[in-house]
C-alpha cells in the first residue's frame, strides 16, 4: 500500500540505528569496562574505548576463585529448573487432561508467580534458620524450584493444550498407562515449548538476586550476590563487577537469541502465542 522512497528508507534505518545505539550503550559500556585496565576505569573524562583491551579482569576472577559463584548459580538454577520442569509438566498435564482444579487452580498458580519475592522469602528465611537449610544447595534449590514451578506449570499448560487429543486417545486405547502416554506422546509433541520454557525458567533463576542475597552467606553464593559484594563502603571493585557481569550476562544473551521465536510467548506468560 505504502509508497517507499529511498529517503524514507534511509530515515527508517537511521532512526533504528539511533534507537539501538541508545539502548545498547549501557551494555557496550559494561563490556568495555571489563576490558579496561583498572586505572583506565577511573579516568575522568571517561575512556570510550580501552587503549589496550585486555582480559586481566577476567583472569582475576579465576585466580581469586570468584568464578565459583557462577558454578553455584549454574547448579542452583539448573537443578531447580530440572525439578520444576518435571513436576510442572506433570501438573500441567493433570490440569489440562484431567480437568483438575479448573480455572481457580490456574489463577492461584499464576498468582503465586506475581507475589513480591521479599514477602515470600522472609518466612522462608525464618523456616530455613530453624531447619538449618540456609546457605546450602538443598535449601536454595528447593526455594528456586518453588519459584520456577508456577511459571513451568503455566507455560506447559498452554503448550499441552495445543497437543491434539486424538493421538493420546489412540495410545490409551492401545493400553498404555497415562504416564506412558504423557512421556511417549505428549512430551515429544510439546518438545519445543518444553525446551523453551525450561530455558526461560533457567534464565529467571539465573538472574534472581533477592532470594540469594537473603539466603546465601559464603557456601553457595550465586554470581549476582557476588557482584553485590564488590560494592564496598570504602571502594567499589568496578573491574570485577564489569567482568563478572559480562560472564553472567553473555550466556543469557546467547540463550535468548537462539530462542527468539519463543521469546514473546515466554515473557508474556503466554498472552501472545508465537
Amino acid at each position, binding site marked *: 500500500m505504502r509508497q517507499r522512497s529511498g529517503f524514507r528508507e534511509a530515515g527508517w*534505518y537511521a532512526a*533504528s540505528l539511533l*534507537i*539501538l545505539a541508545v*539502548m*545498547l550503550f*549501557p*551494555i557496550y*559500556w559494561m563490556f568495555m*569496562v571489563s576490558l579496561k585496565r583498572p586505572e583506565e576505569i577511573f*579516568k575522568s573524562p*571517561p575512556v570510550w574505548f580501552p587503549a589496550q583491551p585486555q582480559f586481566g579482569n577476567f583472569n582475576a576472577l579465576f585466580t581469586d576463585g570468584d568464578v565459583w559463584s557462577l558454578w553455584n548459580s549454574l547448579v542452583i538454577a539448573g537443578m531447580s529448573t530440572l525439578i520444576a520442569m518435571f*513436576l*510442572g509438566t506433570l*501438573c500441567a498435564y*493433570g*490440569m489440562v*487432561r*484431567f*480437568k*483438575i482444579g479448573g480455572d481457580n*487452580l490456574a*489463577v492461584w*498458580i*499464576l*498468582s503465586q508467580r*506475581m*507475589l513480591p*519475592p521479599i*514477602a*515470600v522469602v*522472609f*518466612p522462608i528465611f*525464618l*523456616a530455613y534458620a530453624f531447619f538449618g537449610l540456609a546457605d546450602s544447595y538443598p535449601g536454595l534449590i*528447593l526455594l528456586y*524450584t*518453588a519459584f520456577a*514451578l*508456577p511459571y513451568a506449570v503455566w507455560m506447559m499448560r498452554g503448550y499441552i493444550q495445543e497437543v491434539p*487429543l486424538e493421538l*493420546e*486417545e489412540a495410545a*490409551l486405547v492401545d493400553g498404555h498407562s*497415562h504416564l506412558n502416554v504423557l512421556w511417549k506422546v505428549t512430551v515429544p509433541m510439546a518438545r519445543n515449548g518444553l525446551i523453551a520454557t525450561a530455558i526461560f525458567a533457567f534464565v529467571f533463576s*539465573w538472574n534472581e538476586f*533477592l532470594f540469594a542475597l537473603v539466603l546465601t552467606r559464603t557456601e553457595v553464593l550465586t554470581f549476582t550476590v557476588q*557482584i*553485590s559484594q564488590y560494592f564496598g563502603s570504602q571502594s567499589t571493585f568496578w573491574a570485577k563487577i564489569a567482568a563478572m*557481569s559480562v560472564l553472567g*550476562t553473555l550466556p*543469557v*544473551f546467547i540463550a535468548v537469541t537462539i530462542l527468539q521465536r519463543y521469546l514473546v510467548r515466554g515473557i*508474556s*506468560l*503466554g*498472552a*501472545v*502465542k*508465537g
Partner: protein
Amino acid sequence: MTATTATVERRGRPFWAGRRATGLMFIGPAIFVMLLVGLFPFLWSVAVSFQDLTGSNRTGNWIGIANYQKLISDARLWAALGRTLLILATALPLELLLGLLLAFHFQADRPFKRVFVALLVLPAVVPPMVAGSMWRLMLDHKFGPFNQIIGWLAGEPIVLLWVIKPHLAFWAILIAEVWQWTPFMFIILLAALANVEREQLEAAEIDGAGRLRVFFRIILPAIMPVLSIALLIRALDLFRIFDAVWQLTRGGPGNKTETVSIFMYIRGFQSFETSYTAALVVVLLILLSLAVTLALRRMEIAR
C-alpha cells in the same frame, strides 16, 4: 501468531477426564512443593507477627496486634509505599508509551528488521541487579559517560551527582527501570500489533479514517487483552522493585529512595525486627494475593 483472548477455543474433554484420582497424582507433587514453600512458612510468619521477636530477643512474648498497629502509624513505611507507587505511576506509562512508539516504528517490514528487534530486546533479559550496576557505572559523576553526554548536548560541562542527591536518585532509578523494561513492552506490543487484522486496517484506510481514530477504534481494542497482561506483569514487577534500586542507591541517601521491598529488607535482615517484618509480610501477601487474583479473573487469562 494468534493472540489468546477470552474467546480462545476450549479443547475437547478427553474421555478419561473423570479419573480424578489419577489426575490428582499428576498435580500432587507440584502443589505439594508450592505449598511447602508458600503456605507453611506463611502460617509461621502469621504466628511470629503476634509476638515481639527481634534479633536480640529470640524467645518472644505474645503481644497481640501491636505490630499491626505499629504498621499503621509507621511514617517511614507510608513514605516507602508512596515512593513505590510514584515509581510505578511514572515508569509504567513511560514504558508503555515508549514501547508502543518503538513497536509502531519496527512494525515496518524491512531487511534486517529482525536483527534490530533481536538486539533491542537484550536489555530486558539482563539480570536486573546487573542492570542496576551498569547504570551506577553509567551515572558516576567522575568516570561515567552519562554526564559527559548530556554535557555535550547542553554545550557545557555538567556535573550531576546522580545517586548522591536525593531528587536525582529518583531519576536514576527511573532511567534504569525504563531502560530495562521498555524493550519488554516493545516486544510484546510488536507481536500484538502483528495480530491486528489487515483487512480491518485497510478498510479503515479506505474509509479515510484518521490515524488516531484507527488507533483507538481498531488497534487498541485488538491489542487490549495482551496489553492488559503486559501492564499487570509490569505493574507487579514495579511494585516489588528491589534489585536495581539496591544496586543504585541501597535506598539512600538516608532513606530517600526506599521502596517497600527495600524497607522490608532493611527491617527484616539488617535491623532484625523479625516480628514487625512478619506483620508487614502478612498484610502485604494477603492484600496482593487478593488484588492479583481479582485482576487475573477480570482478564480471564486463565481460560
